[in-house]
């Protein structure tokens, strides 16, 4: 497996490499392609007086040092190389590089926790989450802590699904990934009370219905997976009721609204992203078959 890391020479870049290494570890041809993207030269922003001031030369030397530092972060046994490229937009540049290097996904380090304690994707992650044809993996300091508790090993996959047809796609993909690395799979679904029209009496029925549907799906696919359906007052509280173990990796599917083979994150997935304290990956609507 080969992942592209959108690298910045700071903590978030190091965290992205850590997550990417954990995800590819143990797979065939494990490889981390580290990308340092630079802003494109903008001739219409002429620097005056004095033009370049030797900046390109100094920046280039700096990037070489950053590249060496980044490579040193990749654990033994995983192949790695660095590419530095000037791009007009960072998100588009990462997608282009991802396709050029034929990677299976793009990894980003998360921003620092917000005051509310939630992880929120930054501008670049958001752009990727709305346009990438490749899966996007994201981390944050807290979620990386969870991975480190498991010694940097991914121990379980949790696939978040809705109750509609898209679920099958995500579950079968997650099952293949889990199977390949011999780890457990969990399928999770959240029900917010407000979304259930039948009132409080109907919630139990609703939950039972979803559970049966998911159990059926898992059986049809012939895979082993635990199913958890959690009903709570809101999505936010439901997320908090789900238990986690060290080394968990969450997978979400792209929204049904998404264009063919492009990511798109719906409001519900956005809420889930904001509350998760484990690394996560978002998979495009039709999973890349690469």
């Amino acid at each position, binding site marked *: 497996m080969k992942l592209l890391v959108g690298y910045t020479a700071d903590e978030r870049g190091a965290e992205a490499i850590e997550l990417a290494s954990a995800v590819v570890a143990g797979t065939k041809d494990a490889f981390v392609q580290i990308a340092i993207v630079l802003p494109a030269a903008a001739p219409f*922003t002429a620097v005056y007086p004095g033009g370049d001031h030797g900046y390109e030369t*100094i920046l280039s030397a700096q990037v070489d040092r950053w590249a060496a530092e980044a490579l040193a972060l990749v654990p033994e046994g995983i192949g790695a190389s660095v*590419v530095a490229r000037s791009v007009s937009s960072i998100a588009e540049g990462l997608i282009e590089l991802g396709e050029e290097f034929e990677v299976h996904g793009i990894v980003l380090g998360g921003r620092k926790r917000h005051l509310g304690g939630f992880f929120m994707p930054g501008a670049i992650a958001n752009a990727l989450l709305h346009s990438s044809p490749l899966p996007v993996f994201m981390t944050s300091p807290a979620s990386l802590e969870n991975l480190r508790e498991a010694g940097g090993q991914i121990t379980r996959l949790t696939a978040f699904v809705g109750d509609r047809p898209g679920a099958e796609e995500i579950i079968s993909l997650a099952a293949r990934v889990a199977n390949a690395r011999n780890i457990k799979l969990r399928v999770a679904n959240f029900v917010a009370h407000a979304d259930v029209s039948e009132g409080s009496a109907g919630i139990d029925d609703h939950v039972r219905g979803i559970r049966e549907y998911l159990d059926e799906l898992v059986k049809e696919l012939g895979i082993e997976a635990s199913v958890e359906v959690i009903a709570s007052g809101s999505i936010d509280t439901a997320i908090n009721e789900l238990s986690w173990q060290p080394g968990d990796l969450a997978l979400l599917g792209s929204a049904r609204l998404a264009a063919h083979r492009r990511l798109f994150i719906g409001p519900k997935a956005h809420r889930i992203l904001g509350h998760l304290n484990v690394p996560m990956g978002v998979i495009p609507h039709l999973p890349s078959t690469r």
Partner: protein
Amino acid sequence: MSQEMRRDSLPETNDSGLHEKGLSKGTVGVLGLIVIGISCIAPAYTLTAGLGATVAEVGTSLPAILIAGFIPMLLVALGYRELNNAMPDSGTSFTWATRAFGPMIGWMGGWGLIAATVIVLSNLAAVAVDFFYILIAQLTGQEWIAALTKNLWINIPTTLVFIAIAAYISYRGMNATKVFQYVLVGFQVGVLLLFAIMAFTSDTPYDPTQITWDMFNPAGVESFTAFAAGISLSIFVFWGWDVTLTMNEETTDPNKVPGRGATWTVLIIIALYLAVATAVLYFAGVGTTGLGAGNPDNQESIFAVLAGPVMGPLAILMSLAIMSSSAASLQSTMVSPARTILAMGYYKALPSSFAKISPRYMSPSVATVVSAAAAAAFYVVTRLLSENALWDTITALGLMICFYYGLTALACVWYFRSELFSNARNFFFKFLAPLVGGVILLVMFFVTAVDSMNPEYGSGSEIGGIGMVFILGVGVLLLGVLVMLYSRIRHPAFFKGETIKTGKNLTL
């Protein structure tokens, strides 16, 4: 489950496209270059800041001195181009002067550039703030708002906010787009032409002055002192033009586009300056009272006074043009001292922490903050000490530009000394042009520096009987000498020639 190690970092990073500045390569044509040149000159800003002070020195010979001021600028720019072609990777006065003359003079060349840009930053911010309040006053019809800028408790904090915003934008590495520049430049040129036309066709000029050929004769300037001061001010108004000559690989045809772009830019700018300068003379005369361009009260920002009487309600366009051009220049000029400070940090001429680059925005981090802080400090000190801060900073700026430009021009001659006479082209571009230009500028520098000791010089502010302009200009250079001596003791590597070698054909 491959355990194979494949770490081909070095070849990959070197082929990685860092050096393919790629996307902008060959995208700028002649028109684009003209736009870039005019946006660097920022004529609406330079005219309002420089025209009054120049009239104060040379009176009705204003058109002549504008033309004369271009000549040393042209000669020096030709030398700049040679240095830029010979050492494209270094691209700054600091490294060029170090390679030619050694670390000490090189260090002062870098300091001169930093000082000049820091001074112009503080002036740009001040002009932007003045017109910010004028604009609000014109928009709301509340005239008292325009006077707010005279209140230091309002003026200084607002100016610091402008500088901070510019520094932040610069740190974030945000760039102006092509459309933005075209609109900004087109608007600026259009408004200035409108001003000239309205001044000439005005029914009620304040002091109708006949435009005569004498105004175009440089020999008509009364004294050499006035001539020198006029030249260093008119160099300020052309400062920025030479960027058109140094753009090469960005252009669609490096053989033709830079030359044509530079020629057209200067023709347009001179025509524009002459139109506006004669319009000001025709409308307001050089009288020292009322709206006269010779009135010291009008000289620190000529359009702030004249735009209203000349353009009536359309004066709001002038305020908008000046505010937008000075605010845009404030941001783009911020990059320059930051990069020079970064380069000096990188080559250990200053503490290495100045060489920090933001990993997220790929811009100088510490150096940008230092530049902004220096500009803010310079502004506060000048504003508190001088009765007429804008005027004195512009004059001090002319002094500083003469210093580092002159030094860089002579660096060109000295750097190429072994090949100056090998052919006619070298003789002209590497020897004659930069030598004459450099000598003219350094003579202007010394004459202006000596004259400015007189407390009457410039706006007439003084400390202990010494003119404010001298204290600001020469004081900043002497401060540079002190900082250099300190650096030499603390960080001797650069001064021992360990980071940049003096001489030719050595890679940095």
